[in-house]
């Protein structure tokens, strides 16, 4: 057992003063194994999605609740889920998938306001937050709250209504991603000081909340359609994201430890050999570990 350990993990006479694990042939074998496993998992995900796949749980209800919790904490009134803004958000999501872009403004100059107008919502104030690649509503809202611009939208006293779209599709750089569009708006000027903070409701109504009557630029409220609540929820038996990330952490840590051992032992023994610098490999693999930790985190815009 001790010989096995020495042979595979430490510089030893049996392995020509270089741990067997970090011989070029062994590393290349791991490269082939990783590539093969990657294609195997990718194929298994397509054919057995109930067993293996990336876990996702994002719903409009959760996004609305989490957004309103943030507003309540800031002493602001909650936003009402609005059918027209939901329609606008869904149209924006479909447009991004159809025209393959990831931005507030489309390639033909479409602005978020165009979608809001087209849905029949006559806004005085309007705003938009986008997110992609997140696996939960909590992560999505947390990412928005950590960005000053997105946070300003969520905590703006100017908005009364909100609409969401949660859609799965293809965006630039990703053949399969979850896109979240959050559209804010108000149809009349809101006087925040006169509006008492409201506790986050247990149930969500789609009817507009009456606002102070001193509004200027108000428009006639239009009937609100019952919004379609988007939900993307997948809970396979094995979470492929967790599985592959765990394997990558273990593998990289193993190589980092063996290269560190190699560095320490050869330095202490003053061994002379023709090989690459273990410190270089160590630093490179540590940066790959840092990259692996950051993979799979979504993006906001």
């Amino acid at each position, binding site marked *: 057992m001790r010989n096995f350990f020495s042979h595979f993990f430490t510089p030893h006479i049996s392995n020509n003063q270089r741990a067997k694990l970090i011989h*070029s042939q062994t*590393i*290349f074998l*791991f*490269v082939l194994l*990783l*590539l093969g*496993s*990657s*294609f*195997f*998992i*990718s194929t298994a*995900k397509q054919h057995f999605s109930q067993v293996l796949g*990336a876990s996702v749980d994002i719903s409009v209800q959760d996004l609305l609740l989490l957004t309103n919790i943030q507003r309540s904490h800031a002493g602001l009134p909650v936003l009402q889920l609005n059918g027209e803004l939901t329609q606008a958000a869904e149209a924006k999501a479909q447009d991004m998938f159809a025209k393959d872009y*990831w931005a507030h403004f489309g390639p033909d100059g479409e602005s978020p306001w165009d979608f809001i107008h087209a849905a029949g919502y006559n806004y005085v104030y309007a705003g938009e937050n986008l997110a*992609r*690649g997140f696996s939960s509503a909590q992560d999505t809202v947390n990412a928005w709250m950590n960005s000053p611009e997105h946070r300003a939208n969520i905590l703006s006293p100017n908005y009364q209504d909100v609409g969401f779209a949660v859609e799965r599709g293809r*965006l*630039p*750089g*990703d053949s399969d*991603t979850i896109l979240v569009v959050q559209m804010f708006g108000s149809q009349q000027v809101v006087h925040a000081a006169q509006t008492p903070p409201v506790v986050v409701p247990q149930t969500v109504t789609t009817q507009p909340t009456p606002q102070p009557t001193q509004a200027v630029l108000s428009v006639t409220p239009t009937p609100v359609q019952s919004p379609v609540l988007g939900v993307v929820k997948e809970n396979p038996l094995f979470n*492929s*994201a*967790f*599985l*592959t*990330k765990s*394997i*990558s952490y273990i*593998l*990289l840590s193993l*190589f980092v430890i063996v290269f560190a051992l190699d560095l320490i032992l050869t330095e202490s023994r003053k061994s002379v050999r*023709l*090989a*690459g*610098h273990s*410190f*270089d*490999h160590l*630093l*490179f*693999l540590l*940066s*790959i570990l*840092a*990259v*692996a930790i*950051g*993979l*799979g*985190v*979504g*993006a906001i815009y």
Partner: protein
Amino acid sequence: MKKHLGYYVSFLLILAGGVFLVYQSQGDKMLQLDFVILLSLAYVVWGLLHHFVHHSMSIKVVIEYIVVALLGIAVVFFVINGGL
């Protein structure tokens, strides 16, 4: 170690820059993979340049740097293509 200080400082900057670019391209998996390939390429070039300067270059060393770079790319590809 002192005579290698300049090399390791620049090497660390290259690696940190690569990791920063990957984090900046969150959400775009293909762009992240492209940056990892660039990072690996920079690692190979910088590592071999160091060996070349110190007259310790050999085909064995070249292969070693290439397979370690391939290992880094394969790990990232494994997570992106297999898991996410």
